[in-house]
């Protein structure tokens, strides 16, 4: 670093946070750190996961990274690793408290070691989307507990639909990352490897969703990870898979949340596994003031912050210490997250995830939105597989393409 060390260091901290979460960081978490290290200031920059890739790439290529830490989606991080834009943190591992990681996160790090033979990122937060529902409508329809498995979901949806005339299920059909994340989860629960698109589990999941879409609310075409309005105004009754943060958002808008229930969702025909959307910490290549950055990372992984993540944000922490002696009145939201976490998996952070998202979207549009005949579902998914293969062949190399075809890339279990 060319700057004199006596000068105040300004850390640029990029994170993909909802405004309600950003507020917690800005007003509560970061000030704690700044108090501890008066020589360091932290500027929080909120950027969506996809955009952050572009920004970091540009900063690295432009040679002006400065002192920067990023908290990036565990999937998207693959793009930065592949582009060789991240710093190898192996030399600094001794100063970082990774020994306290919960088992699933340790597994993620092991995976990292085995694939990259280095450390480019460190787990930071876990997050699992939940299913939300309207309690009173369920009750009126005589449904006492939310559907526990796929067939129950189909039955209950049908029942509510017949009673109310309303398509009760809201699905994130808007396209982009939210739709493909949901699809990933459904395919895994049907026993498929989502990346390959056309194994029997994948076909089963798409076939099921196609049938279930009879009970989708028409608005599902615009469902994305910001949607909850229909749940609030009674336009639909089951909001399938939505991140927990919407709870505090609804509260801040003055919506009455007392009648809204949530749970980890129905069990699939093969398993009850839940997708973890976690965030990981990383330092872009060429960053300055590494020492201060490491201090900040250490702080973020510390008991205090990790505890705040559970207690305030209602999201699973990665530090196992944080779970000790949780008060009994801990929010029901965290409880739901915790229970989902018992059977959780990661998506492998492949660098071509965005392209996979696009292809998955396109399959979803053809099968579910445009209702292609059921007999064509396998062939639509095969051509999705073919498309992914060709892309990898063109933009990567034949080895990657071959590995892809052989199911080498798959969900990671913790």
């Amino acid at each position, binding site marked *: 670093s060319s700057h004199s060390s006596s000068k105040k260091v300004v850390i*640029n901290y990029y994170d993909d946070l*909802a*405004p*309600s979460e950003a*507020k917690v960081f800005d007003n509560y978490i970061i000030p704690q750190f700044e108090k501890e290290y008066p020589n360091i200031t932290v500027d929080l*920059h*909120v*950027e*969506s996961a996809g*955009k*952050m890739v*572009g*920004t970091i*790439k*540009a*900063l690295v*290529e*432009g*040679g*002006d990274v400065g002192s920067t830490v990023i908290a990036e989606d565990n999937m998207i991080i693959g793009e930065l690793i592949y582009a060789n834009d991240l710093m190898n943190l192996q030399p600094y591992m001794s100063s970082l408290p990774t020994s306290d990681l919960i088992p699933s996160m340790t597994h993620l790090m092991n995976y990292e070691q085995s694939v990259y033979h280095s450390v480019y990122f460190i787990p930071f937060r876990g997050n699992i989307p939940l299913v939300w529902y309207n309690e009173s409508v369920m009750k009126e329809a005589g449904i006492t507990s939310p559907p526990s498995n796929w067939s129950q979901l189909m039955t209950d949806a049908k029942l509510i639909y017949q009673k109310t005339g309303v398509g009760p299920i809201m699905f994130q059909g808007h396209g982009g990352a939210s739709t493909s994340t949901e699809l990933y989860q459904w395919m895994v629960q049907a026993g498929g490897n989502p990346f390959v698109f056309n194994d029997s589990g994948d076909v089963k999941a798409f076939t099921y969703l196609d049938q279930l879409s009879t009970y989708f609310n028409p608005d599902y075409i615009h469902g*994305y*990870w*910001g949607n909850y*309005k229909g749940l*609030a*105004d*009674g*336009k639909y009754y089951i909001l399938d898979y939505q991140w927990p*943060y919407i709870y505090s*958002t609804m509260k*801040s*808008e*003055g*919506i*009455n949340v007392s009648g809204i229930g949530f749970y980890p969702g129905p069990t699939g025909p093969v398993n009850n596994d839940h997708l973890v959307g976690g965030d990981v910490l990383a330092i872009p290549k060429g960053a300055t003031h590494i020492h201060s950055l490491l201090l900040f990372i250490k702080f973020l992984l510390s008991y205090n912050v990790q505890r705040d993540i559970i207690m305030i944000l209602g999201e699973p922490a990665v530090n196992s210490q944080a779970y000790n002696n949780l008060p009994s009145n801990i929010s029901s939201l965290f409880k739901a997250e915790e229970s989902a976490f018992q059977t959780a998996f990661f998506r492998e952070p492949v660098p071509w995830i965005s392209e996979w998202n696009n292809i998955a979207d396109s399959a979803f549009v053809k099968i579910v939105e445009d209702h292609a005949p059921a007999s064509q579902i396998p062939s639509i998914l095969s051509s999705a597989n073919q498309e992914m293969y060709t892309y990898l062949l063109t933009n990567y190399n034949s080895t990657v393409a071959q590995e892809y075809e052989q199911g080498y890339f798959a969900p990671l279990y913790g």
Partner: protein
Amino acid sequence: MRRNLLVYAGAIIFTLYFLVPLYILILIAFSPAKFTLESLYPPLYFKGFTLNNLVYAFTQYDFVHPFLKSFFVASLVGVIAILLGIPAGYGLSKLPGKIAYAFIVVLLITNMVPGLVVAIPISVEFIKLHLFDSIPGLALVQELVTLPLAVFILQGTFSAVPKEVEYQAKIDGASTLSYLTNVLIPIALPGIVAAFLISWMFSWDEFTYAVLLSPIHPTLPVEIYFNIQRGNELAAVAFSLVFTIPVIVLTVILQKYLKGEYLAGGVKY
């Protein structure tokens, strides 16, 4: 008389068309969630009134910095547009109309490539030049799209000044520069203001480049977009309303400069 009735009927319909969305924006901003987000058929009139959304926006979110950023970028875009546009417009106004027109149209087209394909390379260059995420950087890129339009407007207003006036100034002993500053620019002032305003408004509204090139300190539209995507939507609405009104007022006050003649670039019937 009957003709007048028709005119009034039409006027009322159009007025409603323009005002109703604005009214609904106000309705959402100042109603409690119970009458907006929480109702399946939200009432078309004020059933309740609240300032909570607005208070929330100002206390919990930082909209002020994005607002200032947008304001400065837009103003800079306007200034650059006229600084570069005046010489370019003057030059083009001396060419035959058809050639000048064709030139501007070509410029207009080529700049219609969506910004995102150049975002990363431009970002890289900007970082090297320390323009990334800065006000001048964003302004420069937005200029890609505004400048052709500004030149078009200025070329039009300049061509409307009789060439005898320029001859006269020459004969009166004025150099080209003093002709520009003493005569042409004052005469064409309304057109120049129009070019400034149009550029300003474009930048104020611009989204694509702002998303891509100013990610760290976003402009207002980006910030609002981000908040309706995953934040407190009502606060975002309240805020956008509060900051839309001054711009509307400004638009109305300056409407005499927003004349179609300028936009039409001196096209004559």
